[in-house]
């Protein structure tokens, strides 16, 4: 049972990593709109030769 002294803190640590990722996602606005991305998947990629935006966004 002694392995629990190691495993349980590890589980808490992993959960903390998960929460950190979640916080990043929320601050990045990933959860602000959860419906339009589902629609965006239907749109085709632009074909070759079509003018691209001047520079992509960071």
């Amino acid at each position, binding site marked *: 049972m002694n392995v629990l002294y190691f495993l349980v803190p590890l589980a808490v640590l992993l959960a903390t990593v998960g929460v950190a990722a979640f916080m990043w996602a*929320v601050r990045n606005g990933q959860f*602000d709109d959860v419906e339009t991305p589902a*629609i965006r998947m239907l749109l085709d990629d632009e074909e070759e030769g079509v003018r691209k935006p*001047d520079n*992509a966004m960071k």
Partner: protein
Amino acid sequence: MPTATAHRTGTEITPDTPCVHCGLPVGRYPVGDGPYFCCTGCRVVFQALHTAGFDETFYRLRDLAPAHTAIRPAQTAVDDLKLFELDTDAFLENQTQPVGDGIRSVELFLDGVHCAACVWLVERLPYEVAGVLEARLDLPRARLTLHFDPERAKLTEVARWLAQFGYVAHPSRQQGMTRRTEAERRLLIRLGICWMLAANVMLFAFALYAGLDTTNDASLATAARWASLALATVAVVYGGSEFFRRSWASMKLAVRVRNFRSLHIDTPISLGLLAGFGHSAWATISGRGDVWFDSITVLIAALLTARWLQLRSRRLAGDATERLLSLLPSMTRRVRADDSLEITRLEDVQPRDLIEVPAGEVFPVDGVIESGNSTVNNAVLTGESRPVAVAPGMTVEAGATNLSAPLRVRVQAAGAETRVGKLLAWIRSQKTQQAPVVLLADQLSGYFVLGVLVLASITAVVWLSLAPSEALPHVVALLVISCPCALGMATPLAMAVASGRAARASIFIKSDEATQQLTAVDTVVLDKTGTLTEGRMTLLDYDGDDDAIDLAAALETHSNHPIATALVQARVACGLDGKTPDLPQVEAFEAIAGEGLRGWVNECDVAVGRPAWITELTGPLPPAFEEKLAGYAGQGHTPVAVAVDGRCAAVLAFGDRLRDASKTVIEALQASGKEVYLLSGDHDAVVQAVAETLGLPSAQAFGNVSPEQKRTFVTTLRHSQQRTVAMIGDGVNDAAALQEADVGVAVQGGSTPSLVAADVFLTREGLTPVATLLTGTKRVMRVIRRNLGFSLAYNILGAGAAMLGLITPLAAAVAMPLSSLVVVISSIIQRPFASSTNPPDAL
């Protein structure tokens, strides 16, 4: 939805044929003669898409995915004043944010987006307008985020590009929306952390319930309890601070005003949390007694979840209110000393300034007309559907629309000092005075925690005296099984899901209280203009020569008068460009103020106008026409006569037409035992005629009612007759009554004060959504009662069984999440606002 191609070359055309662009029925006078459209707006957009080569992809995508929001015909009108604001330095400074490299980001509201095709088209912006780097559309909120280079791209260019496809862009008033988004994100993060803590505390708790205790592995058990304490401390301090702060504030208030009813709903929750945490913490430190950190942390997480869901479900209503507020004019044309015009911000306009208001625009201020003759539509202010003629020296009020000719107005009051502004201020102050609604379930779950603590002590005492060794597991089972998270989530979750569903049916419910009140409504008070009727002049009936009416319509394309517009619309369709080739050519015309129009059309001398004026031109009218005209006047319609070459050829009746659904909805309301009243500022004769058509007794219909009288009427119904009143209206004149009623419902096209005052507003036309709303809220309340009943029964039965020693702690721990799951599923599967008019949607 029908495919676009199937109807493009349809030979048979019925009023039900779908418009090729928007899919709504084309009606009796379709536009175009190959592909058919419901209005010129749709035709213009269809042609613009075709010219740009977007049509194939656009219509394919549109048919691929179901529409997301209620569809409306395309609008291609561009408001130049509004556009002007987009390019001002003040706008660039206040409403856009820098994102680096001289690039700025801005948020715009887009009217008219409703499906995948719209997302595709709008997000092509970077390819089409130079200087736009990225466009992202948030479809449910109709919000477009643009990254652009102010040096190279003008926002007016963007707005014009969007407008040619029927999307109207409005500058969003950033502050409110950003604040809401921020609050939502903060709560979401808090929520994530609290669930993570709760999940880990549950892990320890499962081990402890499963039999790990100080007798078999003292050090591990102690470690688990201390670890739970550490995690729970974070949850209580960080997650629970929401509840503590509010309950502390309400306690201070309660002590100051010596009234315990001002205690906030968070107070019992806070007490329960603190008592449970304090006891568990002491048990951990002293090494004796039980811990129930898991119940506390899960409760915090569950309550935060419910709160977040509520916040998120209301954001649609909040956004929609803001979008409507953004429609208010914010710029105006001021006349300089040298008689030239400058476009200026409305805040900078002072009393005594002179402003110019072109035909078709809304007066932004209260003032006196300095020069110009025109007609003004006061429907928004008074409910009167007939336009009023105005001349220099007469006053006009903010909110009225200038109809026929430009006017110069000397400002008397601007902004908050106008009559409309004062009304808005009154309504806002009323809103804050309303007592906070105490939600039954929140209160219950708070007291529940306290009650459980008492029960736990009783159980402990009783079992210690009966069988000391069994006392501990029974107390633990009781504490676990009576965790009130299902109870705490039952109401908010059902409400949140319901308001999301309602928003998809174009119904925006601002508060949960309104949902509850709507089910108790036994009296419905209706406004006439714009609510029961379409709120604009329409051709209702005519008699005489069809060709003469075509000649008259051709002549009327040169006038802005509402009757002229109505005639042209009826003859052509909703003409935005007005000059359609289908009508005969007008060679000359003149407008005779207050009488009508006269001119040469197709080599005929045509006159259209008031019957008395036509009589002057032609001599006595034929008796058949005289009879018709008398009939029109009796029904409250506005009669018009047409003379061709000195002979009266046709008579027409114009009026505010009843919406198609009005009669059925009113009959349904009456059938369900509600009393229906009709109040209007319009002439009594018109109101009585409408009431008769609708089958309302004349004793329940009142004309010439002022806004103040409307409010008093509602007050009397509520207080003297103890009725629960729903007021349904749209105008400024209804705002006070909407505020006064138990539930105020503002309908599509309503004015700003009425939208602020209302508890519910509808963005689909007519009364059909009202019927959906009333049946829908009944269903929501049924779901809530089901949820509450289930979770209470579960908790009471569970607690009873645990006290009697029938349940093991482990079984209780398994049953707890199951009960929450049942409540969640029961809330999510509800479809309260689904009706045959809405396509079934998948959430």
